[in-house]
């Protein structure tokens, strides 16, 4: 093997410059520095890692542990061009396996390997958030390395992908995200294939809410409005946003932090990407109002590393907002001052879990923390912190301007306001749909998304962490309470549709692979259970079930659900358990064999 140039003697001048820029931040700068160093050198060599540890005051073993945790960080040589092909369910339906195979052939590598000349590496990627426009492929390329995420990739596109070219406006790889629905509250400026700039946002009333909050309302007034409309968190847990804001505002401690969770990584979910790529100013306004409400002096945006375009556009929008006086010292002449920092994730689904995200900002492995204490009292750097999902914050300007009553009208009594649905898979128009809370699944699929292509077999609601609905459940109303009563979950709003030509056992295997790859390994039920579940699902998919395997799947699933430390493990078996419930015959020892006896939950 030819040793890549970087391996010999890394030129450390740019690294020293980098460390000088970040030295004051200490350990918290570890992830940004590792990402930037990797962009310079291709991967993190031992001398580079040691220099970073010394420069930031981080024990070397911990630097190592952090590099090892994040999938987008490498401490061994990788190709100068790294191609990552999403093979999660929605992209799989569009031929991801063929793209992956063709990519390996193109590069002349085994999956996960590097070509002999050090040019190419090809990897399997977890969901890249372009489920509406698959097959999605992420490419890092050049020095310093640039990251690009392609949409609509087919095996014949690999010349462009490997050269990292052609992803320009109007090209076949550009994502014109289809954005529709029966409402247009937070998405009017999304799906245009371009970023809405501050002036355009202001032209349709943008930043009026921030003006109103800062000039006419106290922080307590803002929280009262959010409380009055019962805004539920849109990230998946549906936790009332006002409770977080109220508790963080009341908690003793200074400084306080406001964190925007843009680590969207749930397979089937792409709403936060479309919001940030299309209309970042709206999210910034929501976050600024939130920071004002809780008394935060700093806002962190944590955007997943697989969303390079969202990160680029967020930076551009923040620069415009800063120049216009919307953040910094004395915002709009008020006493409110706030700083904003954008952080990139580095390949870890678990960092969407709020406490794991905080650990990641602190420069650590993304292990979820034991709760309580909760972030509202003991959050980032141990200080009071409110952390909200992107879509949640997108609603805030509307609520402040139009009032809680107008917002409540757009939903049901318990599930208030509009909701974004991410529809992908076997439908005529995959896309993002903004709807009233309370429309039925049938309305979304048949009227908004143009209908199912082929005959409907199943819908996976809530992403990998969700559960399956069957055609008989199409008239269920999409609200938190109706879905709960039907034994379903809305989660992040992912709706993945499978027609009768699809093999659900293959889909389950992909979900199993996703969770085994993304488990952080902290608590035993998830660390061991996601691996055991994957092994069992491999037997399910390849029709090699052993006697007792269904019982094993159930015991593993129930144990993960009951005993795991965080939401990842608690939902890692949700889809599998619902599939066993709906289609026991899929789990027969041989195709067409006897349906296994099912154990009852206790």
């Amino acid at each position, binding site marked *: 093997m030819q040793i890549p140039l970087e391996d010999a003697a890394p030129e450390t001048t740019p690294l020293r410059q980098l460390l000088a820029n970040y030295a004051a931040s200490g350990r918290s700068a570890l992830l940004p520095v590792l990402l930037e160093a990797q962009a310079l050198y291709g991967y993190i060599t031992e001398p580079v890692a040691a220099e970073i540890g010394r420069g930031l005051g981080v024990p070397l073993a911990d630097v190592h*542990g952090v590099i090892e945790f994040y999938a987008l960080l490498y401490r061994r040589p990788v190709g100068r061009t790294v191609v990552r092909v999403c093979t999660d369910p929605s992209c799989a339906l569009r031929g991801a396996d063929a793209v992956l195979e063709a990519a390996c052939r193109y590069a002349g590598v085994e999956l996960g390997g590097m070509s002999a000349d050090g040019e190419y590496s090809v990897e399997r990627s977890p969901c890249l958030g372009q489920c509406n426009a698959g097959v999605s492929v992420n490419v890092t390329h050049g020095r310093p390395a640039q990251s690009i995420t392609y949409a609509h990739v087919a095996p014949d596109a690999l010349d462009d992908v490997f050269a990292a070219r052609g992803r320009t406006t109007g090209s076949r790889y550009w994502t014109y995200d289809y954005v529709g629905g029966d409402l247009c509250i937070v998405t009017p400026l999304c799906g245009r294939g371009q970023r809405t700039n501050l002036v355009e946002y202001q032209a349709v009333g943008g930043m009026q809410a921030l003006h109103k909050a800062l000039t006419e309302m106290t922080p307590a007034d803002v929280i009262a409005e959010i409380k009055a409309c019962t805004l539920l968190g849109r990230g998946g847990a549906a936790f009332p946003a006002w409770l977080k804001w109220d508790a963080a505002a009341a908690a003793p401690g200074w400084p306080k932090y406001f964190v925007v969770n843009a680590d969207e990584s749930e397979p089937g979910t792409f709403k936060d990407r479309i919001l940030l790529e299309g209309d970042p100013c709206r999210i910034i306004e929501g976050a600024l109002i939130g920071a004002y409400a809780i008394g935060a002096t700093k806002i962190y945006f944590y955007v997943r590393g697989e969303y390079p375009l969202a990160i680029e556009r967020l930076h551009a929008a923040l620069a415009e907002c800063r120049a216009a006086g919307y953040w910094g010292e004395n915002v709009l002449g008020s006493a409110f001052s706030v700083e904003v920092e954008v952080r990139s994730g580095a390949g870890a689904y678990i960092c969407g879990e709020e406490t794991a995200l905080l650990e990641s900002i602190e420069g650590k492995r993304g292990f979820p923390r034991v709760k309580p204490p909760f972030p509202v009292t003991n959050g980032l750097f141990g200080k009071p912190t409110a952390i909200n999902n992107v879509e949640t914050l997108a609603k805030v300007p509307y609520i402040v301007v139009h009032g809680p009553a107008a917002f409540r009208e757009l939903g049901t009594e318990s599930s208030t306001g509009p909701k974004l649905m991410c529809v992908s898979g076997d439908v005529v128009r995959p896309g993002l749909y903004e709807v009233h809370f309370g429309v039925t699944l049938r309305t979304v699929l048949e009227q908004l998304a143009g209908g199912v292509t082929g005959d409907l077999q199943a819908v996976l609601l809530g992403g990998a962490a969700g559960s399956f609905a069957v055609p008989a459940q199409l008239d269920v109303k999409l609200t938190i309470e109706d879905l709960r009563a039907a034994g379903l979950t809305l989660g992040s709003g992912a709706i993945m549709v499978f027609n009768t030509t699809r093999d659900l056992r293959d889909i389950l295997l992909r979900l199993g692979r996703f969770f085994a790859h993304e488990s952080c390994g902290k608590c035993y039920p998830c*660390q061991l259970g996601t691996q055991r579940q994957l092994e069992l699902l491999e037997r399910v998919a390849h029709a090699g079930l052993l006697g007792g395997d269904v019982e094993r799947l159930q*015991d593993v699933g129930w*144990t993960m659900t009951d*005993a795991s430390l965080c939401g990842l493990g*608690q939902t890692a078996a949700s889809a599998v358990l619902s599939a066993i419930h709906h289609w026991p015959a899929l789990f027969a020892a041989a195709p067409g064999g006897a349906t296994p006896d099912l154990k009852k939950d206790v």
Partner: protein
Amino acid sequence: MPAIHLTIDGAAVSVEAGATLLQAATSAGIAIPTICYHEACTANGLCRLCVVEVKGARLLQPACIAAAADGMEVTTRSARVERARRTILEMLAASVDLSQAPAIQLQMAGYAAQPDRFPGAEERRPPLIDDNPMYIRDYAKCILCWRCVQVCAEDAQYTFALSFDGRGFESQIGTFFDKAMPESTCVFCGQCVGVCPTNALKPRREWLLEEGKTPDEIMQLTRSERRRRRR
């Protein structure tokens, strides 16, 4: 003066505010099994073997970290609890060499956990690391209780020689870029060996004796090693 009153398995128990459910149960003579928990280490709720049912809680609660609260009704052995404990032990036995972890073997017997419940399961079997004169690291026996990492860091020694490789099932305890221990920040305090519950970390001489070396041979071996180092 005890401030918290709760019931555990139907028995009234009183504890000081701030006590965990594990402490409360122990004070009442009720045994709750644990693996990762160690009195001298920060409890992290990793192994989840100590999970109990708390009335009103949706999920099982880890007794080692869950705080006792007034009026709580706790059940330490229910069908749900036993299923979780049994399955965790079975999944662990399928992954790791527990042959030198008698306490866990006893727990397996107590919960009728079958060590061969998961046929075809991937095992973690990295090669034994014999890279220093003081102790060996046999991570095929490592159950990732984190005790060694914790005592090496803020729980005791502030040496920071240890961290993790990989994540999820592929996690393993490791050093900076896989360095041998003498090249790491390790000060050979031995505390990691002391808290290891499965003999994954073991004094090197003990291991050499088990390998069939006689004390004389070990003396020879270590003497030549000492000489080499002096040179």
